[in-house]
């Protein structure tokens, strides 16, 4: 008895211990499994999105082939579809937004890293990022009721009078709903993205380099021009591509202010349409299966453009950027 008790207890202890070890081993594997599953779900989502969009577009792909991308007819009643006009509208609005937004955003990034005192930086930085938090439908609604009338009454006549010799600044239209207004709204959306990424990039520039330049007598602008921008230029380009991706894919705000035109015109003050905005406007009331399939085809073009843009941005970011990574 006296000798049996400890051995029983030890055996039971060993049993409990091994049970616990088994549980631990099982639970460790299970936790790893669910974490891996979560990661796989994310990857599978992208593949599934691609599959569903291609599947939906397949009738239009087999009917129109690749010609869909550059054909400019869009007549739902006659079953004729081509995305040329939409691609044109998408390219013009996004390019214009980037042309206007990128310099402003980079300037804001420089202001936040080099000029602003700590207190100002802590207030202005988050405020600029808040600009990205305003829902696109509200920005579009504001664009429709406030920005478009202002643009029509003041900006368009002014640009036409001063720069009217350029065909892009044609005579003002009656509503202010135009490619130009859409570009302005997109500019507002692009700025916070590029500004916050470029701020992070500029902060990563080694202070020794900047101090060295200053010690050699460089002015602040020469430090920026000679040190800050060259060390981060690839990252800034990646940031601009990300901003471009955002502008290309914006549907709601654009559809509210672009005026849903369907022709290619030189003047920015005419109405137009983009891929994303056409989907938002026509998908819910698509007339035929072919009409719907053509809208899927537009979504497919958008999907490809956005994937390529993000891949290029991350490639540039990883390959060249000083800090080694571009945050979104």
């Amino acid at each position, binding site marked *: 008895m006296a000798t049996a008790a400890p051995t029983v207890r030890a055996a039971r202890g060993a049993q409990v211990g091994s049970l616990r070890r088994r549980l*631990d081993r099982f639970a460790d594997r299970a*936790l790893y499994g669910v*974490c891996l599953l*979560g*990661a796989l*779900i*994310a*990857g599978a989502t*992208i593949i*599934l999105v691609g599959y*569903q*969009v291609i599947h*939906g577009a397949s009738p239009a792909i087999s009917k129109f082939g690749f010609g869909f991308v550059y054909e400019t007819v869009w007549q739902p009643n006659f079953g004729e579809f081509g995305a040329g006009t939409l691609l044109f509208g998408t390219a013009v609005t996004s390019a214009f937004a980037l042309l206007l937004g990128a*310099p*402003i955003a980079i*300037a*804001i990034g420089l*202001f936040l890293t080099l*000029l602003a005192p700590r207190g100002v930086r802590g207030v*202005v930085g*988050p*405020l*600029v990022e*808040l*600009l990205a*938090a*305003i*829902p*696109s*439908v*509200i920005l*579009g*609604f*504001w664009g429709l*009721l*406030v920005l478009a009338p202002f643009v029509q009454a003041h900006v368009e006549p002014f640009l036409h009078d001063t720069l009217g010799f350029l065909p892009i600044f044609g005579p003002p239209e009656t509503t202010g709903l135009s490619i130009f207004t859409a570009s302005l709204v997109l500019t507002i959306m692009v700025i916070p993205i590029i*500004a916050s990424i470029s701020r992070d990039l500029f902060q990563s520039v080694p202070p020794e380099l900047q101090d060295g330049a200053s010690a050699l007598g460089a*002015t*602040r*602008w*020469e430090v*920026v021009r000679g040190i800050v921008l060259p060390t981060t230029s690839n990252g800034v380009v990646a940031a601009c591509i*990300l901003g471009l991706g*955002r502008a*290309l*894919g914006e*549907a*709601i705000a654009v559809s*509210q202010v672009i005026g849903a035109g369907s022709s290619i015109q030189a003047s920015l003050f005419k109405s137009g349409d983009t891929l994303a905005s056409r*989907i938002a406007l026509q*998908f*819910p009331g698509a007339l035929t299966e072919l009409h719907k399939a053509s*809208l*899927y085809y537009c979504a497919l073009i*958008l999907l490809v453009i956005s994937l390529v*843009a*993000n*891949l290029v941005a*991350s490639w540039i970011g990883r390959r060249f950027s000083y800090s080694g990574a571009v945050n*979104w």
Partner: protein
Amino acid sequence: MSDQLIPDPSAPLTPSGNLRRRQLVSRAAELTATAAAIAAIAVLAIVIWTVASRGVKTIDLDFVFTGYPTGVGPMLLGTIVISVVATLIAMPIGVLIALFLTEYAGAKGVRTMKLILDLLNGLPSIVLGVFVFALLVNHKHQSAFAGSVALAIIELPLIARGSQEVLLLVPKGLREASDALGVARWRSVLTVILPTALGGIVTATVLAVARAAGETAPLILASSVFDPKKFSVNPFEALPNVPVWIYKLSEEGNPEGFNEAWGMSLLLVSFILFASLGARALLARSKRKLSS
């Protein structure tokens, strides 16, 4: 010879010539950068001021709690339901991905996963709308659930990224102490690492919700044909929701509808601003606490 070394005491102390030009250029660049920042803040102020001044006239208790045509209660309720369901889907998966990134993945896994999250984050929301339409709505009927799935995909990379940042800040000492006591990996993850990071994970989630709550494009395809009078929380039918209703009213061009849309915009914007500013402040605090 020696008097050349003595500077002319009557020379002006202000720079001249080339140096003066360089300093002017620098000054101009500084002013431009400051002006750009002021312009961005001004746009934000103008948008928020317009929404606030036009929206505040419409908002009263009836507006918030009754249905169409006197109020927008069903839309508010629907938006809450859609956001909650989306978060219930996205948060567990997002946290699991963050755990995968911080606890299990090797360098290659981390790179691949980050790329996948970047790509997800870059998908245009209208494409996600088309996707959930094809997957869940086509040949069936619209449902708030389909909208929630799209919003969940929007939230997922934000939650995963935010949680990962917080998990990385959990002090190494805690992990090592746990390992030294012979605690199994899963126990230290569930009882030490996650609880330490919980505050940060929740605030990252709130930021993601604030980003997704105003998304309109997917909901136009997933949950846009609804009865604006009916209060409902059933996610398997099309629910009235704020973004789509604002969009519809803005397309209709009726002045009374515009007032209603401004009122809803104010409610939505104030939720988003308070949620993101509050979450940001909390996140900064919990990051400071973790890293000190």
